[in-house]
């Protein structure tokens, strides 16, 4: 489910070189990325999806929570997608405009994905960098904790948490972020172990810079490449994850919605022939995830100098 650790780690091998080669690596990477046609197309697609989520609402003829009572229960004839009625994507089973709801759902799904990935990446990087920097017993203890946590079936714990504390977007971020920082911590620690023996770190230690400052100023920036790749590959997994939670009925609260919730509703009415109710949200879901995967792959290839 989560980005493959070994694959991401290989990026780290490349990043090590960063301090020596200076800026040119990033420039190289950019050039390599833009040579990768699939990644560029994916990046454009991602831009379009983002624009849809941000500005799509301007074109919507209805508010996402507005119920057109005359359309409830007559989806099959009146709620079909049409430019005449202004319901470009048709309506959902509750007589609401699916276009406006898809815009809202895309936004929320992207937000869940990005914020969830950010939480995971920030916590994981800081944790891993700290463990790697201090090394020795601290490292041993911190990494054992990670091992322990990795053995816990977190999906089960997350279900428990959502059931118990009630559903909220905050809980979702927290839960999802909590599950996925562990891999990041391991990767960040591995890279830190090599970085901390570099001259610039040794100099900083020698002149008495505070360890917290060394970690934040000197180590974390050198982890940036690997972090970006990992984060990009994490976002689509977060979105898939959220859709699973929505399926269990533990997702965002009505009248707000997410792509996962819309797809889930749509999959229920599929057998009645209301294909648009699943089709449109699924389209945006698939495009978003495809795009993130390709951009992530492109970034990894670009930051990995081993020419394939």
């Amino acid at each position, binding site marked *: 489910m989560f980005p493959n650790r070994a694959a991401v780690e290989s990026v780290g091998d490349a990043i090590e070189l960063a301090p020596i080669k200076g800026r040119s690596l990033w420039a190289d990477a950019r050039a390599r990325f833009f040579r990768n046609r699939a990644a560029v197309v994916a990046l454009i697609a991602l831009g379009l999806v983002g624009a849809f989520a941000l500005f799509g609402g301007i074109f919507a003829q209805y508010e996402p*929570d*507005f*119920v057109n*009572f005359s359309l*409830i*229960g*007559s989806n*099959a004839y009146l709620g079909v997608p049409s430019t005449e009625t202004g319901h470009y994507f048709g309506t959902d*089973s*509750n*007589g*609401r405009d699916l276009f406006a709801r898809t815009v809202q759902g895309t936004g929320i799904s992207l937000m869940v994905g990005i914020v969830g990935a950010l939480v995971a990446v920030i916590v994981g990087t800081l944790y891993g960098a700290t463990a790697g920097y201090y090394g020795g017993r601290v490292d041993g203890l911190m990494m054992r904790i990670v091992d322990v946590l990795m053995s816990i079936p977190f999906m089960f714990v997350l279900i428990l948490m959502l*059931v*118990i504390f*009630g*559903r909220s977007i905050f809980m979702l971020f927290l839960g999802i972020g909590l599950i996925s920082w562990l891999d990041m911590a391991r990767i960040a620690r591995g890279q830190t172990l090599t970085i901390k023996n570099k001259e610039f770190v040794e100099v900083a230690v020698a002149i008495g810079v505070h360890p917290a400052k060394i970690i934040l100023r000197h180590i974390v920036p050198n982890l940036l490449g690997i972090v970006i790749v990992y984060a990009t590959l994490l976002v689509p997994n977060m979105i898939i994850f959220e859709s699973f939670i929505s399926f269990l*009925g*533990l997702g965002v*609260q*009505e*009248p707000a919605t997410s792509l996962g919730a819309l797809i889930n509703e749509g999959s*229920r*009415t599929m*057998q*009645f022939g209301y294909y648009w109710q699943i089709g449109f949200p699924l389209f945006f879901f698939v495009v978003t995830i495809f795009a993130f995967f390709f951009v992530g792959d492109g970034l990894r290839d670009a930051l990995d100098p081993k020419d394939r």
Partner: protein
Amino acid sequence: MTFQSKLLATTAAIVVAAAGAVYADGHATHPETGEVLASDQTFTYRDLDESPSIDPGLAEDSAGGDILRDLFEGLYNQDAAGNLIPGVALSHTVSDDGLVYTFTLRDDGKWSNGDTVTAGDFEYAWKRAASPELASPYSWFIELMALENAGEVIAGEVDIAELGVTAIDDTTLEVRLTQPLPYFPQMLTHFTTFPVHQATVEEFGSDWTKPGNMVSNGAYMLTEHVPQERLVRERNEMYWDNDNTIIEKVTSLVINDENVALTRYLAGELDRTDVPAGQFPRLAAEYPDQAVSVPLSCSYYYMFNLRDGAPEEIQNADVRKALSLAIDRDIIVENVLAGGQKAAYTFTHWATAGFETPDIPMATMSQEDRNAMAVELMTAAGYGPDNPLEIDLVYNTSDSHRSVAVAISQMWKQTLGVETTLANQEWQTFLEARSNGDFEVARGGWCADYNEASTFLDLMQSESGYNDSQYVNAKVDDLLAEAKTSDNAQANYDMVEMIVAEDTPIIPIYHYASVKMFAENLEGWPFENFQQNWYSKDLYKIAE
């Protein structure tokens, strides 16, 4: 057996079965109606969820009740219209003060292992259900039956031998009550009162309900039980009325998702399933002989929190009434649910026996008038576009509750400018919040315990444990108390409904209907039975 030979064998078996069906069809006829019976007399239906228990003493849900009515037989059964007909008991006499019931039991009742069903089996079962050791969540039913010493036995204050039920001899059962209950015989069709086989329970302990162990006295016996998957019961040859049982095998399948269940019904795997909300019109048009909607004895309503310390806004009866007026119930029942439910302006279900729905003024108005009146009341209460009312609405997680809540919050918004925050909570959290008064407006549903209006209206009594609104009105309490002994209870019920419509502690929204798909050739379903108590032994399949 190799994979391929297994496949061949399966195919062969299907061919043989199909051939057999052609020849066998048309042989048997129904003893009463003379209809030609199908050779395949199996009944397969969908259950939403696994029942907590199929031990009569411990069972607690209605799906479990459906299973238990097949496996066991109590003192009385219900016929298709819900009237009492003899089960294990042939008849009974009541003492003049209405406190002592003496039942005469049939002597040909048999357990599935051949033992005779005796009055002692009932005595044992009832005492077991009330015993603190069993700790049944349904032991309160014994208390509800007003058996002598029931409360004390459950609380462990009095020895279990003191419970008001005694087997005089094998065919005579004496029951002593603490107060006369006119509907007492009706309660004897409930699963908690079913007999259990003492020797089996004592031999196997809590494993006695497993197939192979269970000894039962109903028309069917348990042959297979895979929790969360299926429960199969087959004809009990020992049953006294076995000759009139037509269905050979009944299977209940646990299918959580109603859309999946419908798919499987349409694929011919099920003989009965539920219709998903909003799909009834389409299915009724496409399968007119299969989609059925009958009234079900439950009411759907929203309740306001009227406790001290609850938000100030909703303590104003005018505000509550405005919110009630602004709900277009016709849209809810015709468009959102569209399954033959009825718009509700009274709490009591319209089809309750002996209940005439009173003329609530709101019920006869047009929706435009209601909306106008609602706006007027809201404005008078000081709310309007500049000062919109904000309320929280909680409901328990379910697709149809969500649809209703979404529609109603929009009606409030579009008519009154009310800003509603929706919160769906899963069931246990929801119950806790509701009984603790941690809500402003909450969804409620109430199903009749018995077929009389007081089963609904008693909720409006200030002391009722189910009055989650904590609505207190002395007049209502008096009227309800008086109705218990009055000859003309209807007048009191009318007044209570009027007061409730005016005070609006709750907003009645609709009266339930049971909306189901039934296989075309399935006959004998008791549609007239308001509580939908059905017995597989009354069903049969006709040849097509």
